[in-house]
């Protein structure tokens, strides 16, 4: 029996030789055990070594292989080729980001936004080592664990229509990661993060479309994080208006 094949229509953009992106079609074996990333690596190894894309772990951990497959943001290492039979399968770089080359997007805008929410544990006064560890109960861990699962794959930014329309929007993953630290019993930085997130380009551009949570491969539920944060920020706002002396 001859090996069945499937066509991949791959987005190509080589800034040194073309001004507009094009699509290039590759015919690859349709193997049952292959994910889309395997097919891309097959192209790179056997057909066209110039195709450029990011990947590393091949197991849904590093968050670097996100792309649009038939218009939906997914991790290509978690997307079985067979699901797209009979094809063709359209593969594009993540939407809402500038493209560096082929399937590689520029992440610097996200990196800057992520830094703004101070995604690390902030304490007013550091405890001396001699005083021992910061202990945490399983319940306290459960409060933020879900948000700590984020792998910075940026699928949520690609899925979010508001991110597309409002490039200043700080975005789903950055807010979920802010919550990851806000809800950590060891952290004391929530007021600093509130200052950043209660701006117009913080949480308030979110209109609860919910696509971020639908595409997140790690069940982080950034949309839920944002809604919880809206409640906290609203309480804070009303308190500051009704009881300005309480600040």
């Amino acid at each position, binding site marked *: 029996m001859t090996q069945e094949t499937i066509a991949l229509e791959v987005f190509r953009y080589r800034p040194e030789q073309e001004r507009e992106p094009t699509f290039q079609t590759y015919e690859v074996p349709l193997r049952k055990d292959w994910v889309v990333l395997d097919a891309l690596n097959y192209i790179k190894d056997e057909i066209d070594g110039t195709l450029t894309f990011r990947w590393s772990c091949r197991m849904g951990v590093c968050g670097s292989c996100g792309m649009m497959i038939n218009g939906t943001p997914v991790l290509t290492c978690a997307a079985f080729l067979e699901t797209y039979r009979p094809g063709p399968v359209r593969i594009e770089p993540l939407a809402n980001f500038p493209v560096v080359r082929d399937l590689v997007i520029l992440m610097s805008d996200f990196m800057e936004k992520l830094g703004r929410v101070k995604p690390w544990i902030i304490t007013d006064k550091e405890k001396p080592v001699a005083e021992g560890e910061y202990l945490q109960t399983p319940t306290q861990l459960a409060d933020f664990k879900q948000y700590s699962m984020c792998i910075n794959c940026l699928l949520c930014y690609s899925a979010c229509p508001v991110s597309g*329309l409002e490039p200043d929007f700080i975005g789903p993953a950055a807010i979920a990661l802010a919550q990851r630290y806000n809800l950590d019993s060891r952290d004391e930085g929530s007021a600093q993060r509130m*200052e950043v997130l209660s*701006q*117009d380009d913080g949480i*308030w551009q979110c*209109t609860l479309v919910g696509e971020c949570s639908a595409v997140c491969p790690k069940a982080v539920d950034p949309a839920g994080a944002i809604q919880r944060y*809206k409640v906290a920020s*609203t309480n804070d*706002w*009303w308190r500051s208006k009704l009881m300005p002396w309480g600040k």
Partner: protein
Amino acid sequence: MKVSNEPLWWAFFGAGGALSALCVPALLFLVALAMPLGWIETPSYEAARALVHHPLARLFLFALISLSLLHWGHRFRYTLYDGLQLKHLESLIVLFCYGGAILGSVFTAFVLWQL
């Protein structure tokens, strides 16, 4: 950098959404189905009027109607911004959506007051 004033509208939006999701289906069931189909007895005009005349009933109706209107205003504002991509008409849209909701609330208060 300035703290957003969105919490003002969002609080009304949230309250209106929760209240109408909770109460409107029950009210619709009673007034639009159960009563006309005779599943429960329809109160006489006088009895219904006496019911809404109670200050608490009027307060409830005012909260339900005005918060639902404010919920609409906030949702519709973003529908126009993002859905129809009319963000350049921002001040006009804000005026229309929240202004409309506030006008509707004032009118509601007036009607309920007159009862």
